[in-house]
């Protein structure tokens, strides 16, 4: 039971930067939205604050809290077509649709995101190589623009705004509701395999071999081992279980743990991260483990610890997720891993995955074919920022990109190089909308070299 109401100060998940909007305006009903053009400051929708950096923050602006727009609108159980308001969380959707034999088409690493946020960040999941991004499954949505227009956007109606809004970081207007396709399941379990690997080469090999066979793949990696192997880790792959007899079986509910206070900043350091990695790697005694597990621990292992972000203490942390193309990607990956190891900054939760070739309709969509690595670094001031700037350079040279939903610091030049369609996108940004992220990366006063 959750009696505690959520606080209304918008913060991002990484808790860096800590900046305040001039005003928070809650929206309760689609039929009662204040006139957006009347606000003095630029607007940005905000729901549960699960973006890591500043793409959901609007310093000095108006944070439009849409988390109260959380009603379902319709559910076609034969077609698996669900329509709901933008503030509905994926957790609520799962609770509703899983017992009825459906699953969300693409799921990020946490279920505590809103549907609006899933579209605005065009989130991806473990099945990117099979299903693309969340935006690939959206059939239509309603977009409220600041001059009062309510537009239905789909691949056929207002297609440019549709493409700009998917991955559009909330800048094109407020998504009021969205309709998207679910995926049918026989039961709620995942038939999974865990495979140990001891080098990046081996990861690539397992990845190539499992991508066709498995719907969901991702790996936890330890990049602090050094040497020619570059990394070691555990490759996790799975499919929705197909056994009809399990359909009636309900996974037991575990009480979520919570981190009740900010850990002091010394708790997470290279040494503790190294021991944690050692422990993780060796919890598995045999090379391959095969089992059937409930979907929650498979998709959302971190959701079982509420506020895990507090482990980083009050200084906050920076997530860094990039993708490098398959060609030359190996060299770039090697250089990045080397630089991180030399810097002495330990990344606690490191996730490695390959992206497939399915293209999203989104103009600013992040995923593209290649290898993607997600790392997090406790915020250690200039040193951390410098390291990430160096990594940006490597990513850029290899023709890759850094994920805006997790970013709090990339430069305008790099953003513009990572997202060559940004100027096309900028035409669709609502004149009354902006974000801390957008103000930083849309500078045009510097020379753009692509």
């Amino acid at each position, binding site marked *: *039971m*959750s*009696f*505690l*109401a*959520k606080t209304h100060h918008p913060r991002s998940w990484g808790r860096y930067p800590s900046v305040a909007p001039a005003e928070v305006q*809650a929206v*309760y*009903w*689609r*039929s009662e939205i204040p006139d957006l053009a009347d606000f003095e400051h630029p607007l940005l929708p905000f729901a549960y604050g699960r973006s890591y950096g500043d793409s959901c923050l609007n310093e000095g602006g108006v944070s439009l809290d849409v988390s*109260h727009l959380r*009603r*379902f*609108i*319709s*559910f076609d159980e034969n077609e698996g077509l669900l329509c*709901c308001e933008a503030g509905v969380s994926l957790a609520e959707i799962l609770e*509703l649709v899983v017992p009825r034999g459906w699953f969300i088409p693409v799921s990020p690493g946490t279920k505590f995101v809103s549907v609006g946020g899933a579209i605005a960040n065009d989130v991806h999941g473990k099945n990117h190589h099979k299903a693309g991004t969340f935006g690939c499954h959206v059939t239509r949505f309603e977009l409220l623009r600041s001059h009062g227009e309510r537009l239905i956007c789909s691949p056929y109606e207002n297609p440019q705004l549709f493409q700009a809004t998917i991955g559009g970081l909330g800048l094109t207007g407020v998504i009021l509701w969205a309709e998207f396709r679910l995926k049918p399941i026989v039961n709620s379990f995942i038939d999974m395999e865990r495979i140990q690997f001891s080098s990046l080469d081996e990861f690539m090999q397992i990845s190539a071999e499992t991508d066709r066979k498995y719907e969901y793949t991702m790996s936890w990696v330890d990049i602090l081992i050094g040497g020619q192997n570059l990394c070691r880790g555990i490759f996790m792959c799975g499919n929705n279980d197909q056994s009809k007899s399990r359909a009636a079986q309900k996974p037991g509910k575990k009480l979520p743990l919570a981190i009740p206070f900010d850990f002091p900043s010394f708790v997470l350091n290279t040494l503790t991260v190294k021991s944690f990695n050692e422990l993780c790697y060796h919890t598995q005694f045999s090379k391959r483990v095969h089992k059937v597990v409930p979907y929650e621990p498979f998709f959302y292992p971190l959701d079982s610890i509420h506020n895990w972000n507090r482990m980083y203490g009050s200084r906050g942390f920076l997530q860094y997720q990039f993708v490098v193309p398959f060609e030359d990607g190996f060299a770039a990956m090697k250089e990045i891993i080397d630089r991180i190891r030399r810097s002495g900054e330990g990344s606690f939760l490191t996730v490695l995955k390959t992206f497939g070739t399915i293209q999203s309709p989104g103009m600013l969509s992040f995923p593209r074919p290649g290898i993607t690595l997600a790392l997090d670094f406790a915020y250690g001031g200039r040193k951390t920022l410098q390291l990430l700037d160096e990594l940006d350079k490597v990513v850029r040279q290899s023709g890759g990109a850094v994920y805006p939903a997790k970013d709090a610091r990339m430069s305008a030049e790099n953003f513009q190089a990572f997202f060559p369609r940004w100027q096309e996108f900028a035409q669709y940004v609502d004149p009354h909308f902006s974000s801390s992220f957008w103000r930083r990366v849309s500078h045009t006063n510097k020379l753009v070299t692509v």
Partner: protein
Amino acid sequence: MMIVGATSAIAHETAKCFAKDGAEFFLVARSPQKLADIGNDLKVRGAQRIETYVLDVTELERHQEMIETAITTLDGLDMVLIAHGTLGDQQKCQRSVAETLKEFTTNCTSVISLLTILADYFEQQKRGCITVISSVAGDRGRQSNYVYGAAKGALSVFLQGLRNRLSKSGVAVVTVKPGLIDTPMTAAVKKGLLAASAKGVGEGIYRAMKSRKEVVYLPWFWRPIMLIIRTIPEPVFKRLSM
């Protein structure tokens, strides 16, 4: 079941729980648009049937007709939840008799009117459950909101009497006393640590209705808090600024 004030955040949370059980709803509220939003949501969540009725509860003369419509369309009523209310502006009420009476009509008189009609129906039916959202504010008058508090206090006493009367007919009367809840109604109120979410309170009401409780404080910690507040002697209490 019938819900009056069906678009209130707390009522909606309670209704979600009943929808999961496949309940049939007769939803009453002022705004047809919001009623449609809530109705659609409950339908997706499993409600077997949704009927809506647009009514401003201060139109007391329409109560009889509304209740008759509910009974005929749903083919009887097992449960009623009365959840409408306005927080009102204490300062404005102090300056205006009309404003004070308006608050009273919304928060007290209109509910008493509905209950008077419903009581006869339930008494004859000899089963069912009537649940009304009152407030901890009705437990003791305070300078900051005594008009609202007095309306809710009168309501709580009315419900006590009604419970006493209907218990003989096997009808449960549940008085719900929420503390400060984070809802659109209290959007302008500064929230402290004690503010609760509408979801938790809505689920608490569902459980109270299922187990046919008498008086429930939500969240539970308001019961000891109000016990303390009620026991402060008046000579002391009058000096406090609460």
